[in-house]
């Protein structure tokens, strides 16, 4: 498998990259780690005329605390997120989700930004980012804007990034006290992508009351989404196995599940409930300081 020919540019600064992206429009594709784009190019399903390699941009790979949130640079690899002490301490869900992606080699190379911009409907990160309600920063020659993650994934392989924009950063709010989160995934046996993946975040108040809940679901439909019906069914309730089971039933509400040779729509829908419950239970245990 060999990609079709293309013209290649490796800008050294973000500004330079943005100018190139602006100039070439949809004839150009942005290359970060390459683990979403290159497979498509090798299959020749994608044949961009220009490839703009942003992998060499300095200062776009970092995980740091600033202004009360954790900022993650778009070029940060899955492996860096998986092993980040800062994330493990303040937002272990992201580290856990990163560890669920592909395999060691893929995690060493694939980047957060590339993964999100590609918006594969079965990618792992989106579930966690939706559950965490993060913000995504898009840079352009006109400056940067932030996009709430809930408005970021528009459809299959389609995001709210506009032509000329480069995803530059993800901003995560550290988990509040008495909060637990977990990612549970049913992997496709060959590729490891999520048939269903559910990330759940629960904040507990006094007496085990659920004060806040965030549930992100991936793999089920054409885009990852926030399972608001599940969240609604949880908020204000006292946590229990029963409430998790009941709430999890809404995991696929309003979504027309995808179907393929690995899982029918019905099975995906059922598994969305099963995995939502599992994620909720584990998030709850963690919120209580267990597990």
């Amino acid at each position, binding site marked *: 498998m060999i990609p079709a020919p293309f013209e290649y540019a490796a800008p050294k600064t973000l500004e330079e990259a943005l100018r190139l992206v602006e100039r070439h429009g949809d004839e150009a594709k942005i290359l970060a780690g390459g683990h979403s784009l290159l497979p498509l190019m090798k299959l020749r399903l994608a044949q961009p005329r220009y490839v703009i390699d942003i992998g060499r941009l300095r200062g776009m790979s970092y995980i740091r605390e600033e202004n009360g949130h954790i900022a993650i640079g778009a070029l940060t690899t899955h492996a860096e997120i998986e092993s980040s002490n800062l994330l493990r301490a303040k937002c272990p869900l992201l580290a856990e989700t990163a560890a669920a992606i592909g395999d060691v080699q893929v995690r060493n190379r694939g980047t957060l930004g590339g993964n999100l911009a590609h918006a594969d409907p079965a990618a792992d990160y989106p579930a966690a980012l939706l559950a965490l309600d993060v913000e995504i920063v898009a840079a352009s020659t006109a400056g940067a804007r932030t996009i709430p993650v809930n408005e970021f994934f528009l459809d299959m392989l389609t995001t709210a990034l506009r032509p000329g924009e480069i995803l530059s950063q993800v901003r995560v709010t550290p988990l509040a006290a008495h909060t637990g989160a977990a990612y549970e995934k049913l992997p496709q046996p060959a590729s490891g992508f999520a048939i269903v993946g559910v990330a759940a975040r629960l904040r507990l108040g006094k007496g085990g009351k659920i004060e806040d809940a965030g549930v992100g679901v991936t793999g089920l439909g054409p885009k990852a989404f926030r399972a608001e019906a599940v969240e609604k069914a949880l908020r204000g309730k006292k946590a229990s196995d029963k409430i998790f089971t009941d709430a999890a039933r809404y995991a696929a509400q309003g979504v027309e599940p*995808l179907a393929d040779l690995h899982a029918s729509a019905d099975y995906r829908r059922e598994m969305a409930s099963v995995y939502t419950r599992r994620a909720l239970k584990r998030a709850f245990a963690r919120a209580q300081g267990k597990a």
Partner: protein
Amino acid sequence: MKLSGQYSLPAPPAKVWALLTDPGRLAKLLPGCERLDPEGPDRFKAAVKFGIAAISGKYAGTLEFFEKKPPRSMRMRLSGKGLPGFVDGTGQVELAEKGGQTELRYSGEAQVGGMVAAVGQRMIEGAARKIVDEFFAAAAEELKKE
């Protein structure tokens, strides 16, 4: 692959029918359509750029209408091929009037082959649905303008 669905369009069936069978206007509404040239009665040569995001390819093919019963129903046959593979499909479109508007139902079956079929399996149906949705959304817009 089987696809079916229904849409409400803001015009009576006669107007919808006129739109659907007018190659000039169709070409503008079909997502990615670069050319739609008549090749005979109810038969058109098409050049279309299909796809979503990074996965897209150019297809050349034909579009044919048959068993036309204006303004109620018709069948169509679509075939196209390009580097990522080929698509061969037939479909049925039915129009019904409802309060001055049109209820359109469609159903169809398509054979998708080549690279797209082998690796894009997970996405094909979603992509097809998306293209159809976009088409009818554009058609609704167009009808509103009239």
